[in-house]
């Protein structure tokens, strides 16, 4: 899966499943402050990532993931 395909897939579930406005999604957007993801949303993101990408996010892995761009990179690294 290419980086663009990962980005498309993540943006898709953020918009469709978490109902986040598309204009809030940009590479440098902060997941908490700009995208608006809270601790409950994070649980649903774990479920969606496992369903779509086949691996389980570890909470400790996310400490350094602050932006959407970093999140795409994290997923890419995990599925390689």
């Amino acid at each position, binding site marked *: 899966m290419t980086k663009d395909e990962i980005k498309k897939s993540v943006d898709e579930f953020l918009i469709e499943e*978490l*109902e986040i406005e598309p204009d809030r999604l940009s590479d440098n957007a902060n997941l908490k402050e700009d995208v608006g993801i809270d601790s*409950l*949303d*994070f*649980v*649903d993101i*774990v*479920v969606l990532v*496992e369903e779509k990408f086949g691996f389980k996010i570890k909470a400790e892995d996310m400490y350094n993931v602050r932006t959407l761009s970093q999140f795409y990179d994290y997923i890419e690294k995990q599925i390689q």
Partner: protein
Amino acid sequence: MRRVVITGMGIYSCIGTTLDEVSSSLRNGRSGIGIEPCRTEFGYRSPLTGIVPIPQLKGVLERRQRVCLAEQGMFAYVSTKDALADAGISDEYLAKNEIGVLFGNDSCAKEVIEGYETIKRTKDTMMVGSGSIFRSMNSTVTMNLSTIFRLKGINLTVSAACASGSHAIGLGALLIRNGLQDMVICGGAQEVNYLSMGSFDGLNAFSVRTDDPTKASRPFDASRDGLVPSGGSATLILEEYGHAVRRGAKIYAEVIGYGFSSNGVNISQPSDVGSATAMQRALDEAGLSPGDIDYINAHATSTQQGDATEALAIKRIFGTGGVPISSTKSMTGHECWMSGASEIIYTVLMMKGGFIAPNINFERPDQYSEGLNIVSHTVEKELNVCLSNSFGFGGTNSALIIKNL
């Protein structure tokens, strides 16, 4: 003495989802009972159930609100939104005033079962998602209503089996009467999905009269063979009388009596003594004698023993041949945790419409209902004071008396 009045109502049931639709169903004796074939495939004895549509709330509520709502919570959201609108309560009013919520609910079976299946399949608790805990707790209805409507008063769920909704109203009235609250949202909600009623079906408690579903629920009739499960939600806005007058609210009726008791005997068998005690206490609180009651909305669910015991209890207090009686469960089925609240709404609609809704399918009394004035066809009648019974497993009993205003 602070008086308690009903200033708003909302209903979401198998006989209608608006007050007008429900009033029309009650007047015309329209049943909301049907067949859900998946129940038989799942292992039920009976596929009969009240047919209640699932509300579509996408675009109405935010995602975070929706994922925390179980089925009965969705029903309760709609009935409560409608009740608040009916009472003239705006979002601005909700933000600036202290309003409580007391709702009857006594199961979250679908959410618990589905959560279990997900964890068992994935071996991972997180896979149930963020909303599961809020959908599967018994207080799911009140925790959701209080956050959606920004309520800041009393906030708790009443779990008292099939008397839950009735006790919620009685307790709300007590809080207002004692000056602890000016306004409380009261009601009852009941999930109606096939996962919620299997264990009840397993007690042989449900009717298997599947040839004509609308004839299956027949309280007090000699040929009754069991109840029909049903559900939905009913919401009433209870308010202190002076408070209602000052804000120019429409007033439907006054809650003048709440009687309760516990049988203290058997977990599933009712008691005519316990039931009669609740009715007598409601009469005592209202300062009335049995002859003052114009109509009884019976608890009668269409089971052999339950209806017989209630008939005996009514005879203990009211004698025979006098007060008109009907069980609206003949049309709605047994709305369980919701029924004590919905049946107050049905009774208020009768008061306002000047009629008694029929106990449909009552064709022949048995030795217990013989001598009671059970209304089998709609009667045009002015109703001033009415009593509504609710009884539940574990021997919990509640009786409410309301007065037309």
